[in-house]
């Protein structure tokens, strides 16, 4: 449960008509919804899209939720494994780690938040989602479409808010261990305690895998080995009256190792040691008609990189990177008749020190004000105008307006539409990188003159809830990106040292349709989705690489509490993806389509007593994937046991 939900759900405690769509209203309880949701009960409350609490199906902006139960059902060990089979999500595994593409746009266009606050550590545009351990996640909210109106830069394609886990019972403890293919070992432990005015938890985890190789004909490895441990704590103190103080802190360290073989014959043993510190502190005050909260947060990402050339020291390299983000956000929400006004100020400070940038340390500040009005002029209509104005010390002013609305023509229908602007500020690396890869023979130079990328996005969706156990939704999206930052060849005349640089010369669009349906019949839950994505470079007319035009998912979950049995089977079918490869050696890229593929996972869990659950599972049963265009983890088996008190 995030502090934001706590506070904003408290706002929702204001008198509201049952079943109304008034923002922040809670219709199904007469208790303090803030406290109740904070206790982690399985309620579909979402907060990310509007910074106010809404029942999921009544949120003015559609939000996907992956709650604690779903996380446990999937057996996921990290945030990526929670999200990778979600509708409309495509995993992108690159040099920066594993991120996800939303609506056909790269991971750099999706903002990653922890408890509503920005985190550091984007590498090659990607924040590696495998670094967020599942045992610390209460739920993940995914909001598609521009979120810059409330969160600022980087939220063009969507916003992923990882909401950290808090104690749900007076005393609770959890010990978990699993072991699987590739010597993958996960051991986690957690204790929590909740009293009327105090909630605290402490958790720790250890994760290990030997990695994997999809092509043994080369010395390169595909999936790196990894060793990770983390420790975290969440603490909350509430006064008898209005005030509460909420804090969260986590330290994570991970070491990954892999082998890279170049076309020149050079072979490197690569080691990365990443450390993150994430901490936030949120004092807040609530009353019946409003709430105020301030969140101060700090996020450190440190990465030590070593590249050891076999047989020579000529190309050995090391790099130490520190990426700090400190952020302070104050938000005031007030109910005024049929309006809920949310206003806030936001200040962010980012400092990056790295060997590969020139100068070696750079910093910038952003200051922003934002305002949003959730207006409910009719019981069946919500209108949300909003605007945020960012001042970036490097780029000046960037306004990001959004207008959204939701119409409920009947209890079973939700019609939503939004139109808004997003922007992505160039990263420090894009602006100041100075990297020479003598082994391969190229140099990349940053461009201090870069300007932010901007987008205008349109979303229209319809959700049909024919019965309490069924949901069907269809959405259409259209993103138009201007001034996208692309890597351009500055000079290739030097033969053995091509010079690349960044430039704001791209234009792109991504449009498509997302549809999903879910049905719950007795112990059986069925869901499916289909996504059509048409993403292309507007200058060349070519499809953006790596995107599947067609993708579908299907899942079945059988859960019978009296048996203590849960069986889950999921599949994802991904159509051909366009790639561009020089197949005939003429230095001209030719388009090729990768083969379509399907993944299939299965997991069986059985509780033996109230406290013990054992499970076995198989991921990638069809054993698809390869080392070039589809680096999926090969078929892997696992089993584990969880003891909960």
């Amino acid at each position, binding site marked *: 449960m995030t502090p934001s939900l706590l506070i904003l759900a408290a706002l929702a405690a204001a008198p509201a008509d049952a079943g109304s769509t008034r923002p922040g209203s809670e219709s199904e309880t007469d208790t303090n919804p803030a406290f109740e949701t904070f206790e982690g009960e399985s309620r579909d409350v979402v907060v990310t899209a509007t910074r106010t609490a809404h029942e999921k199906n009544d949120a003015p902006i559609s939000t996907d939720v992956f709650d604690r139960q779903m996380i446990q059902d999937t057996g996921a060990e990290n945030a990526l494994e929670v999200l990778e089979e979600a509708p409309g999500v495509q995993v992108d595994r690159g040099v920066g780690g594993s991120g996800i593409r939303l609506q056909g746009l790269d991971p750099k266009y999706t903002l990653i938040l922890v408890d509503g606050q920005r985190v550091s550590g984007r590498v090659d545009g990607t924040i590696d989602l495998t670094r967020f351990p599942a045992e610390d996640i209460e739920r993940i909210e995914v909001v598609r479409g521009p979120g810059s109106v409330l969160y600022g830069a980087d939220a063009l394609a969507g916003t992923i808010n990882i909401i950290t886990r808090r104690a749900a019972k007076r005393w609770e403890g959890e010990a978990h261990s699993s072991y699987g293919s590739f010597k993958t070992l996960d051991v986690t432990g957690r204790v929590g305690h909740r009293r009327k005015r105090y909630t605290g938890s402490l958790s720790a985890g250890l994760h290990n895998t030997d990695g994997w190789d999809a092509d043994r004909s080369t010395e390169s490895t595909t999936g790196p080995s990894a060793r990770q441990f983390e420790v975290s704590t969440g603490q909350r103190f509430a006064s008898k009256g209005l005030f509460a103080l909420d804090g969260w802190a986590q330290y994570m360290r991970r070491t990954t190792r892999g082998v890279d073989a170049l*076309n020149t014959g050079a*072979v490197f043993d690569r080691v990365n040691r990443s450390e993150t510190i994430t901490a936030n502190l949120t004092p807040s005050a609530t009353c019946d008609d409003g709430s105020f909260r301030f969140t101060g947060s700090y996020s450190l990402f440190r990465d030590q990189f070593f590249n050891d*050339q076999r047989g020579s020291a000529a190309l050995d390299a090391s790099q130490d990177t520190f990426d700090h983000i400190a952020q302070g956000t104050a938000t005031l929400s007030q109910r005024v008749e049929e309006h809920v006004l949310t206003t806030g100020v936001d200040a962010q400070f980012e400092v990056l020190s790295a060997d590969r940038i020139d100068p070696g340390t750079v910093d910038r500040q952003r200051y922003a004000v934002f305002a949003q009005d959730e207006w409910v002029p009719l019981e069946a209509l919500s209108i949300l105008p909003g605007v945020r104005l960012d001042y970036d010390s490097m780029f000046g002013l960037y306004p990001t307006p959004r207008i959204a609305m939701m119409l409920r023509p009947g209890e079973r229908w939700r019609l939503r539409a939004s139109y808004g602007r997003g922007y992505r500020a160039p990263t420090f690396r894009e602006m100041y990188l100075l990297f020479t890869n*003598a082994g391969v*023979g190229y140099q990349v130079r940053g461009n201090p003159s870069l300007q932010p990328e901007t987008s205008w996005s349109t979303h229209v969706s319809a959700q049909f809830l024919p019965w309490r156990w069924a949901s069907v939704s269809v959405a259409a999206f259209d993103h138009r990106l201007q001034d996208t930052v692309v890597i351009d060849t500055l000079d290739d005349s030097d033969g053995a040292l091509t010079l690349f640089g960044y430039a704001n010369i791209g234009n792109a669009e991504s449009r498509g349709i997302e549809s999903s349906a879910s049905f719950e019949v007795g112990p059986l839950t069925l869901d499916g989705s289909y996504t059509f994505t048409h993403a292309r470079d507007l200058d060349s007319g070519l499809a953006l690489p790596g995107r599947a035009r067609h993708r579908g998912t299907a899942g079945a979950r059988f859960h019978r509490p009296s048996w203590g049995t849960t069986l889950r089977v999921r599949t994802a079918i991904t159509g051909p993806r366009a790639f561009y490869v020089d197949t005939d*050696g003429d230095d001209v890229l030719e388009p090729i389509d990768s083969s379509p593929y399907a993944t299939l996972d299965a997991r069986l869990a059985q509780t033996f007593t109230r406290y013990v659950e054992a499970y076995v599972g198989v991921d990638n049963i069809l054993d698809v994937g390869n080392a070039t265009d589809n680096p999926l983890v090969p078929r892997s088996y696992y089993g584990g046991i969880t003891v909960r008190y």
Partner: protein
Amino acid sequence: MNLSRHLLLATFLCPLACAGDLDDELGGDAVEPPAEGRVGPHTTSEPRDGGGQRSTVDASDEVLWVYFDLETGTELDVEDPGENLQWDLAFRRFHIATNGGVSGNAGSEVALLPDPFDDVSGIPDSGFVVDEADGDDDNEDPDYAFRDWYDYSFMTHVLTPRSQTYVVLTGSGNAFKVALEHYYDEAGTSGFPAVAWAAL
């Protein structure tokens, strides 16, 4: 000795006599037997299968040139390449200069033959050029006589020597055939050209 024996002896001696004549004809110094092993701080040489020598040069420095004398088969320590008339080839990364034209004052000339190294046995009559000042191209480097010795893949950034041979007429008047065989050392590091060469 009868006439037939004289003819037979002349036939065997002719190649030796001709080689000597060419050396004299060009007015050059004698070519010393090539050295083996380390022949300089940045250069090693070894006999090459198929004939000639293979010298591998550590030319990985972005700034410093490595100078090589074909006559002695050794690396030279050259302070002023304009004044020094002894060096024949100079290496820096993938650049190869000769001691003539804008690169030096020894008067070296180079001819490019489209034949593999082992197929070249004579000196072409024409086609000799020297290092020239930068012409109308995309870079700012001099137009070296050796400038087209490689193919470069824009996709992989890998540099691959072409199957061709250069004939170098040194300032001392000797002729050598020269071909590039590799640009990467055994560990895959760039800037280590392996040069096949032999006197003609």
